[in-house]
C-alpha cells in the first residue's frame, strides 16, 4: 500500500485560502466587498463602485468624504504595494466595508513577504502608540520632507489612515509558507 505524505510546506499552502478567509469575513453588515487582483483597471472599478454606493446611500457629505478618503488611501496603498515583483503570483487581495451602529470598518487583505512582516508590524505599533497630536506632528514631519523620499506614498499612508480614522489600526499577520504571509488590516471609523 502506498501512502502519500504531504510535505509540511505543501500542507501550509493548502491550509491558507484567501477565498475561505474572504467568505468568513462576509457578514450581514457588509456593504461592499471585493476579491481579486488589483490592476489599474480593477482599482478604478473598485473606487467607482464604492463612490457610487456612498453617493446613493449617504446623505451626509462629511461622512461620504471621510469614508471615500480612507478608501482611496487604503486601496491605492494596496495597488502600489502589489507592484512589487517579488510577490510573484500572490496578487489576490480583498477589500471589505462594513457598517454597524454608525461604525464603519474597512478591511483589506493581501499577501506580503515574510521578510517584510517585522518592519510593517513595528511601524503600525509605533503609529498606534501615538495620540492624535503626536500623529499630526509625525504626519507633518513626513510631509515636510516632500518627494525626496523614495518610499512612495506608503510612509505617509498608514499615518494618514490612523489620523483620519481617529482609531488605532488593527492588523493580523498569518504565515502562509516559508516565503509569504497574509496581512489583514482593519481601519475603523465611528461617525459621532
Amino acid at each position, binding site marked *: 500500500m502506498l501512502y502519500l505524505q504531504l510535505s509540511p510546506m505543501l500542507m501550509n499552502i493548502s491550509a491558507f485560502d484567501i477565498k475561505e478567509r474572504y467568505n468568513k469575513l462576509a457578514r450581514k453588515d457588509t456593504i461592499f466587498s471585493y476579491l481579486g487582483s488589483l490592476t*489599474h483597471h480593477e*482599482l478604478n472599478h473598485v473606487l467607482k463602485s464604492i463612490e457610487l454606493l456612498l453617493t446613493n446611500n449617504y446623505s*451626509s*457629505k*462629511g461622512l461620504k*468624504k*471621510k469614508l*471615500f*478618503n480612507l478608501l*482611496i*488611501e487604503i486601496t*491605492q496603498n494596496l*495597488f*502600489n504595494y502589489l507592484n512589487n515583483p517579488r510577490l510573484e503570483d500572490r496578487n489576490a487581495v480583498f477589500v471589505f466595508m462594513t457598517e454597524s451602529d454608525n461604525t464603519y470598518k474597512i478591511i483589506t487583505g493581501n499577501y506580503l513577504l515574510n521578510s517584510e512582516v517585522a518592519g510593517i508590524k513595528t511601524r503600525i505599533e509605533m503609529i498606534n502608540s501615538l495620540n492624535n497630536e503626536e500623529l*499630526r506632528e509625525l*504626519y*507633518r514631519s513626513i*510631509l*515636510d*520632507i*516632500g*518627494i525626496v523620499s523614495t518610499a*512612495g*506614498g506608503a510612509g*505617509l*499612508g498608514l499615518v*494618514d489612515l490612523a489620523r*483620519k480614522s481617529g482609531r488605532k489600526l488593527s492588523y493580523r499577520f498569518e504565515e502562509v509558507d516559508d516565503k509569504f504571509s497574509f496581512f489583514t488590516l482593519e481601519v475603523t471609523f465611528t461617525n459621532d
Partner: protein
Amino acid sequence: MNNYTLTPTPKTPRLYFNGQNGEFEISGRSIPENSIEFYKPLLEWLDKYIESPCDETKLSVNLEYFNTSSSKCLVEILRKLERVHEIKPVNVKWHYEEEDEDMMESGEDFKKIIKVPIELVVVKGDND
C-alpha cells in the same frame, strides 16, 4: 511666459497656471496613483516661473479629494512658491467644504510647514 494648463479628469485636477498675471488654480480631485509623474511638468514650469515671476502670485487650491502622494507634490509646489515669495508677494487660498474637517486640517498642515501666507477659506455646503 506661457501658461500651464490641464483639464481635469476623474483622478486629476484642473491646473491653470497663468504666467502672465500670476493667477494659479488647482481644483477638483488629485488622486492619481503616480502623483510625481503627474506633477513633474508643473514643477518644471514653476522652476522657469521663479526666474521672472509676476508682481503678485495668487494660488487658489480647491480640492475635493487628494491622496497622500499628491500631498507630497503639493508641498513641492508650495516650496517653489516660497522661493517666489522671497522676491515678490505670494498668497495662497486653501478652500475646504464646511463638512470636510480632513481638508481643513490639511490646510493647517501646509500652513504650518510652508513659509508663504496661506488663508483657509470655508466653502458653504450646498445641502445636497
